[in-house]
Every structure is written in C-alpha cells, then in structure tokens.
C-alpha cells in the first residue's frame, strides 16, 4: 500500500507514544460513538496524569469511566459528568480536577483547535460561573466572552467505516463530537467497524477526510446503551 495507508495492526500500535501527562481528546456522546477499544488500550497501558477532553466521562465500568479505576485521569474537561459514582467520588475528594465547559463551547473549542483558530468570542456562558475571569466584549450590543481553542496530544475517535487512507463516515448520532475531535489532536487514532479500500466510499459524502487521521484500526464494539427507551410495537 501507499504512504497514505493509515491502517495499524494492533491496539498497541494504535496508541503507541501515549505517555503520562498527555492530553487525550475522546469522541463520543454518552456511550454512543465512543472509541471503546482505544479507551481499553489506554487502561492497559496504565499511563497516568492524563488530561481527558470529552463531552462525558463514560459510566462506572464502561467507556472513559474505566480510566478512573486506576486514577489515570488527572483532569477532565467535559460538559456533563453525571451517571458515574467513581467520578463523583474522585471529584468530591479533589483527586480529579474537573473543568466544566458548555457543550457547544466545547465543540467549538475543539473545532477551533483543529482549524487553527486560537480563540473566539461567544455569548454562551456570559454572566455565569463559566464566564468568570474571561475577557468580555460587546458585539452587536450583547456581551460575549473570549474562549480559547483546545488541542491535544492524541485524538481518539470512533467512526463507522473508513477507507485505508482514513477517509471516514459516521453513522447516526454516533457522529457527535468525533469529527471535531479528529481534527484537534496532534495524532489522531481512529477505530472503525469496517475498513474498506480507497474508492469504495463516495468522496462527496466523506465526513472526516483522511488528512486528519494518522492511525486506523478495525475493531469490534459492544456499543452499550445507556438509556434503552422503547415504545410498544
């Protein structure tokens, strides 16, 4: 294969280079579209003092929640961290630093990080504790706060399918933060349900162009459901 072949053969190889103290950006919303196996690999590696940026921190025993068990996370940047007792305990005891960020601001910070925009103004969170200490400026008669971009050492994302070049598509709302996260890490590792040959995915409907993806691996996924809600058939 060519120099654009991003496929790696093991999860060890996929997460090679991850070290203590690094910043990891993780795709997913709740338990949907999370890079399950890459998270498992981080647990296996036992690296410590991580800063993890992700909308949520999984649940007890699944997703990013498992990195709490051995206290691998030093700081969590997220918009919502309920549904996780271990998280709660570590946050309350001060072992875990938490930086809450509004969901849209978090998404925009990650997009900005990938897009070379170091900072932007937003009206979101002005006048709230999240806006405290941040520069305020009025635009169109309305106060806005200055927010800084987020970048990381590693991006870990989960897509549905990708070709060997890393051109990827997501499925349904499992897309969520993954496209932005993919752009914001120095090294982007993507795991997918299926790897196809270049040319099999229509170039017109690629969600994440391969230029953003450094390593690609095919995995199998549990895809746990957090709140199974059904109606009568």
């Amino acid at each position, binding site marked *: 294969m060519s120099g654009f072949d991003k496929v790696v053969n093991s999860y060890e190889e996929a997460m090679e280079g991850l070290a203590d103290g690094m910043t990891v950006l993780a795709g997913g*919303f*709740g*338990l*949907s*579209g999370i890079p399950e196996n890459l998270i498992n690999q981080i647990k296996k590696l036992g690296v410590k003092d991580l800063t993890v940026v992700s*909308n949520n921190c999984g649940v007890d025993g699944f997703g990013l929640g498992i990195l709490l068990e051995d206290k691998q996370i030093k700081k969590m940047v*997220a*918009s*919502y*961290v*309920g549904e996780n007792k271990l998280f*709660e305990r570590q*946050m*309350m005891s001060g072992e875990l630093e*938490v930086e*809450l960020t*509004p*969901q*849209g*601001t*978090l*998404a*925009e910070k*990650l*997009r900005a990080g990938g897009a070379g925009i170091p900072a932007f103004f*937003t*009206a*979101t*969170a*002005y*006048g*709230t*504790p*999240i806006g405290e200490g941040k520069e305020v400026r009025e635009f169109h008669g309305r*106060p806005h706060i200055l927010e800084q971009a987020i970048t990381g050492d590693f991006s870990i994302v989960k897509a*549905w399918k990708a070709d060997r070049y890393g051109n990827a598509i997501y*499925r*349904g*709302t*499992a*897309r*969520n*933060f*993954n*496209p*932005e996260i993919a752009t914001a890490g120095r090294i982007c590792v993507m795991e997918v349900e299926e790897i196809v040959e270049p040319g099999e995915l229509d170039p017109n409907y690629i*969600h994440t162009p391969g230029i953003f993806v450094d390593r690609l691996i095919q995995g199998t996924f549990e*895809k*746990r*459901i*957090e*709140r*199974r*809600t*059904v*109606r*009568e*058939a």
Partner: protein
Amino acid sequence: MSLTREQMAMRVARTIEDGSYVNLGIGIPTLVANYIPEGREVMLQSENGLLGMGPFPTEDEVDADYINAGKQTITTVNGSSIFSSAESFAMIRGGHVDMTALGAFEVDVNGNIASWMVPGKLIKGMGGSMDLVAGAKNIVCMMTHTDKEGNSKLLKQCKLPLTGAGCIRRVLTDLAFVEIDIENSRYILRETAPGVSPDEVVSKTEGEMIVADDVREMDV
C-alpha cells in the same frame, strides 16, 4: 388549581407554530412533543446532532447509534438530518432554532436563569443548556412557581449560579404564564391557571410583578 405537567406541556405546545424547529429540554419540556396541535408540523432538534427526532424505537428498532441528548434510544422522522456537535451548536448559537423549552430552578426580573447547579450539591454539568439559552430565538422556561417549601422561584435576582444572563422573556409555571419585562425589571402576568387568582400569583412571586390589563385565565 395549579396546572399538571401535562397541562403545562399542552399550553406550550399550543404556541408552537407550524414549521418550527424546536429543542425540548429534559423533564416537563419533553412532554411538549406529545401535544403539538393537529395540522402543525414540528421538527425536534437533539443537540447531540439530529434534526428530526422521531418517537422512541420499538424493541426491534433499538439502535445504539441513534440516541437523543438525554441518551435515550430514538428514531428519526422522514426528512431528518444528522450532523456533528460543532454543527449542531452552530445551529443553536447562530439562532437558527426557532424555539427552546427548558426547565429552571430560578428565573429573575432581568431575564436571568439558573438551572444547572446548586452549590454544595453534586455538580453534574450544564450540558448544552448554556448554549441553548444564549442561542435560541424564543425560549420558554417551564417550572413550578414555587419550590417544595413554598418559596418563589420567580425572583428579584437569581441566587443560584446562572445558566445564562438576560436570556429569558417567557415563563410558564404551574400557576401562570408570565412575561419578563427586562427593560423595567419586572414580571408581567399574562395568564393564570384556571381557578388561580392574579393576587395569588403575585403573592407567590418574589420579583416585582404587574398584572396585564388583559390578564386572563388559561385555556387548558
């Protein structure tokens, strides 16, 4: 008689125009979807990245790749679209969502809202609520008029940490439909729940409240 949760949802549902893109928060606001008047079509936005949320799936339809902002399994309607988180909040922040209904702990006469955090209690995070109150064109707060101890939740000034400043103009409680006149830092009582007097509403409201000349009893 104070309104039931269902009556509150009905009252808000009636105000939604045909062809609206709407984001409904968890709790009572979610119920609004059940009472959209016949002949009006509404497209529900789920801020994790979906426009056109459908009903919950049947057991056979459950798919882990399709969830809503409350992490519940969902379906999509005909003509739906899916997008990333940054695109979703571009939509919200950019003022493209026509209406948002959401719950609150407190509001005040300056249009402030507190809905995400009670100091000393567990902090779970604001999720998308701060973006929604900052971005939506038309927000309605749905909440009980008083807390369990009978203290007003329509305050002169919010005591809890804010979700947004100066964002709220309309509040539906179990007792009344109220507008916030930010320019004059006061509430305007527009409608009362059936059997609830304007005086009762005013007495249960901490912030200054004037009664609209054409105040009326709500149709439920």
